[in-house]
Structures are given as C-alpha cells and as structure tokens.
C-alpha cells in the first residue's frame, strides 16, 4: 500500500466561503486554485487516484491560503469548521481511498483552535492537524500557541507543518515584493527551516518528547545545510551575551542538529532524487513519509505522484524500509487501521 500523507483539497462549501471572504477583502489568492478541479471535485480527485491502483491512498488536508491569512480571529473558527466538515465528508464518500484527513485550525484564535481539535479528532475522525510555518506573520514559538502542540502530543497524533509566505515578503530591501515566484518556490522551504529551528531552540521537544511534527518538502533547507547548523549554531557559548541564546536549554545548545532530527519529513520534492537521498539520510527512514503535494503540478496531480513514486523506486531501499516509507510510518503516526 502507498499512503500519500501531504496533498491538498478545497471542499466545495469551504471554497465558496473562501471566495466570498476573499472577494470582500480584494484578495485574489484563491483564483489560482479554480482551474485545478481535483482540489474541490471529489470525482475528479478519485479519477487521479485511480490511475495509481487500489493500493494508493491519500490523507488529505486543506490547500493554501492558511485560514488565518484570509480571516481574522472572529471568522477563522467558522472557516475551519467548514473546511473540516468538508474534508470529513470527502473521506466518507471516497470508498476508502481517502482514509482520513489533517484538520485545519483557526490558529489566530487559540481557544477556538483547541475546541476544533477536539471536534475534528473526536467527532470527524481527523488523524492529524495542519499548521502553517507562521500564524499571520507570527512565529510558532509564541507561548499562546503552546497548548495546541501540547494537546496533539497528548493525543499522540501528528502535526503537519506547511510553509506560508506571500509575495509581499520582499527578497531585497530595495524592493516591495518578491519577484518570479521566489516567495513560494524558495521562500516556503526557508519558512519551514526557520520554523523548525525556532521550535527546536525554544525547547519544544524537551517539553513534549512525544510530539510528532511532519515538515513538508523534506525538512526545508535543514538536511542540505546540516553543516551550517551543526558546528556553528552549536557554538552558543561564544554568544552568551545575546538573550536569545541565553534562553536556549543547554542540552539543545550543545547539539541542535540532534534535536532537529526529531522532526519528521515528507518526500514532496517533485521528483528530485539526489535531494530525497540527502533528506532521507538526515532524518532516517523511520522519520520519512511518502507525500506528493498532489494536485499542484501542471496536470492536476498525477505528475507529482508518478515522479515521487519513481524517486522512491530508485532509492535502492530494503523492502522493509521501502514499506515504512510508503505506508508503515504513516500507519504508525496517524494510527490508521489499514
């Protein structure tokens, strides 16, 4: 079996509400999604899955934009409920092809987010939550967000972390916008890496040892730049005057890299074989999960699925490790009975 753990949908009722809220604000971000039918049309989606046989399943989650980027804290709980009801319905109607979903949360309203976790996991059958690498511009290590991590650790269910950044995050001080899609193609993996480093250095795994966070796109930049994190960020004593460093628990400061390996990572690298090997070596096969980012390729989903399967086939893994990567780790983390 193949379980694709990070891929996106926009259930129809949620999409209608997203359009209305976005139009009110003059936000055109959602329009890019409209030509991609497998996002919101379940039959179209299941046709994409059918190309890959009965053994290929998807755990779905919501597509960008993050709810907190389109709605304030008053409206975000309602949008999250709509999204989760819609995803739950997709799963129910999928004849087993979509075994579960990662719930969306109103992250800008932590009390409502806590209530939505209970509803989504307890009543709707969600087996994970999805968060983004920042909450409307704020870092994930803000204390008000900690109860969300704490609750997921207690439930022993994973958190999927998706990157978020918009074109208004300029790449150069002299410019007001990011050009040529750099904000998502490279800015998103940067976002993921920073969020990982911040959570790790804030001691999240010290406080919640059983917490499981799956980072999209194979851990952002961390595996490729393990050398820059290792000896340099590990050299904290040279910087003790800095209050940021003074607050880092000593056990982490000694070796941040070992703590960064506590994250999980997915294989959504769009067909990059050498990079997948590099990421796999960093996180280890027990911490890597198969994912494709379907349907955000140029043909509505099947291209990234095919490319990612090809990469996994070419890794030369032992059968037991291959099984872990394709489905075993997902079964364990998401506590699936499949």
């Amino acid at each position, binding site marked *: 079996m193949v379980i694709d753990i990070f891929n996106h949908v926009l259930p129809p009722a949620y999409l209608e509400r997203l359009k209305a809220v976005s139009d009110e604000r003059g936000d055109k971000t959602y329009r890019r999604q409209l030509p991609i039918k497998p996002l919101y049309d379940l039959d179209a989606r299941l046709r994409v899955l059918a190309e890959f046989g009965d053994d290929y399943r998807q755990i779905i989650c919501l597509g960008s934009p993050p709810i907190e980027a389109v709605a304030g804290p008053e409206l975000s709980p309602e949008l999250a409920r709509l999204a989760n009801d819609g995803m739950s319905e997709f799963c129910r109607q999928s004849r087993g092809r979509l075994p579960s979903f990662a719930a969306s949360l109103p992250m800008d309203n932590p009390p409502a987010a806590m209530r939505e976790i209970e509803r989504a996991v307890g009543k709707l059958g969600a087996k994970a939550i999805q968060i983004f690498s920042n909450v409307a511009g704020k*870092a994930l290590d803000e204390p008000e967000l900690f109860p969300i991590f704490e609750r997921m650790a207690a439930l022993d269910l994973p958190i999927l972390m998706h990157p978020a950044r918009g074109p208004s995050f300029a790449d150069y*001080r002299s410019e007001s916008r990011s050009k040529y899609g750099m904000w998502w193609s490279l800015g998103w*993996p940067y976002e993921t890496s920073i969020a990982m480093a911040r959570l790790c250095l804030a001691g999240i795994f010290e406080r919640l040892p059983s917490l499981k966070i799956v980072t999209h796109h194979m851990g952002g930049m961390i595996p*490729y730049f393990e050398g820059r994190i290792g*000896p340099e960020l590990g050299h904290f004593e040279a910087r003790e005057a800095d209050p*940021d460093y003074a607050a880092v628990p000593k056990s982490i400061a000694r070796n941040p890299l070992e703590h960064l390996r506590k994250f999980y990572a997915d294989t959504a690298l769009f067909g990059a074989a*050498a990079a997948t090997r*590099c990421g796999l070596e960093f996180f280890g096969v027990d911490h890597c999960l198969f994912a494709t980012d379907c349907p955000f390729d140029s043909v509505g989903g099947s291209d990234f699925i095919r490319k990612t399967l090809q990469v996994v086939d070419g890794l030369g893994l032992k059968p037991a490790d291959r099984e872990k990567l394709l489905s075993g780790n997902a079964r364990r983390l998401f506590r699936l009975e499949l």
Partner: protein
Amino acid sequence: MKIDVFTHIMPAGYLQRIGQGTAHDPGMSKRVANIAALHDLQTRLRMVEQFGDYQQILSLASPPIEVLAGPDRSAEIARSANDAMAEICAKHRDHFPSFVASLPVNNPAEAVKEIDRAITKLNACAVQIFTNVAGHPLVEPQYFPIFERAAHHDRVIFMHPARSAQFTDYPSESESKYELWWALGWPYETSVAMARMVYAGFFDKLPNLKILTHHLGGMIPYFEGRVGAGLDQIGTRTPGQDHQALVGGLKRRAFDYYKMFYADTALFGSLPATRCGLAFFGVDHCLFASDSPFDPEGGTMFIRETIRVLDALEISAADRQKLYEGNARRLLKL
C-alpha cells in the same frame, strides 16, 4: 595538490583602514578579533602548512565593502584590499597561488576599472561580489557592466552571500533570531540571486559568464524540483505580475540555466548534501572550498571536514582530482 578556492582573509592593513567601519558592528569586530588566522599572517601560514599538499585562494571576508563605505570611498578601500592580498600572494606563492579581487560594486564605473587593474596588474584570478548590493538586487542594470567586464576577461565571479540580523524572518519581529539570518538566510540569498540572474537572461547575454556560488549552490540542488517542475508554472501563484512575458524572453527552459553556475564544496562536512549538490551541478562545475577560517577551531576544522567528505565521495580518482585541483586550475587560470 588541493586548491581551496573560497577562503577568507582580512589583511592587517585593510583591517586597520576599515576599523571605523566595523565599530558600528561589535559582533563582527569580536568575531574577527577572535580568529587569528583571519588577520595574522604567521598563524595563517602555519595553518595552511598543516595540510601538506594544500593551497588557498584568498578572498576578502565579510562585510561587503559597499556596506562599509558609500560610492565615494569604496573604490579606494577595494584598491587597498586588493593591493594587500596581491602582496601576500606575491610573498607566499606556495601557500596562496592567487586571490579573488574585491570590487566597489556600488560604484560600477570604478568597479570595472578595478577588475582591469586587479586582473592585469595584480594577478588576481577572479573577482568577488555579494548576493545583494547594500540591499539592491545584482540584476539592476547599473551593475551589468561588472558582469560584462568579468566575462570579457573570461574570469570567474565568486558570489558570496550577504544578509544581516536586521533582515527579519517574521513580519511581527524586528530582527532575525539565533543567527538564522546567517545559517539559513545566506543560502536563501544565494538561491534568489541565482534565480534573478537566470530570469534576467544573464546567460543568454553573456554566454561565457562563470559564476561560482558559495556553499554548493545555496538551496537550488535540494529544491531542483521546485525550481524545475514548480517554477515551470511560474506566474500561476502570484496575482498581478506578468511572469510569462519575462520568461518568454529566455532562449531555454529557465531550469537549464541553474546548471550553468559553478559551486563550491563549503558545506562544513555534510557528505549527503555534497553528493546532492554534485549530482546537480556535475563534477566539472564543482570546486573544492572550505570557507576557512570561519569554524569553531579558527580555521582547521572546515578544511579537515571538507577533505574528509571529498575523500569519501564515491567518484573516480580523475573526478576527485578535478574537484581538488583540475577545475580550479582551468577556471582560475592558475
């Protein structure tokens, strides 16, 4: 012979001259003072000798000259840096066969003159630029003559990343924390600078342009799928910008141009990452470099670790010789 192509120095005279410039940045002054091999030539020579059949190409350490001085003074500072590096190389050719010239990039007319002077009079083997010019992208038209001139001399441009803590990671914060602006922001800078050159058509305009990217091409090799299959859909995600029109002006698929860059092995001891970068650029486009002396030991650790990684790569002896020496001799005309 192993030729380490990207290593940094602060000649003592140069350091004195810019002393005032570093005063506003106590972190940088402290860092420089703590690393003797950066400014003390005897320490540096002893360090190089420890590695036997090993030489270093010298280049100036951060900060970029254009961050220290405006266009009125940058040319004079660059000249003094280059004179000092030329003198060190002339005296210690066995340790330092050549150097990479610094340029007053914020004064393009002077920068072009300094390229000519450094290459023809001082025996510089290449020139160094940073990923932004005091906050401006390198593709702004006023900087183009610099690229043109380096290509005219058929000399490699070394591209070093630049960013400071003031470039924040979150809109809700005023500074980047934990030096992440350095650890991760620098490779991001390199990647975006590469992409901007690609889309500006640099490689169509200057077919023999050779740019060496520090730290094995920034994020590009690991995210080849995002700059490839991902950015093939350019424009679909950003409302209000006509990207197709810009991309349409390129002679090839944008992705192909990224492989025209060169890259160095300064990944501080990561074998899996080095394999990934090498698979992307190919062995003819990769050069041995350590980023010495910016490691916790003051210079020796990154050299030793990088050699360990290169020795462990599953490649032929001929390919390893290219990485260590052959490519450097060819590209830097040593």
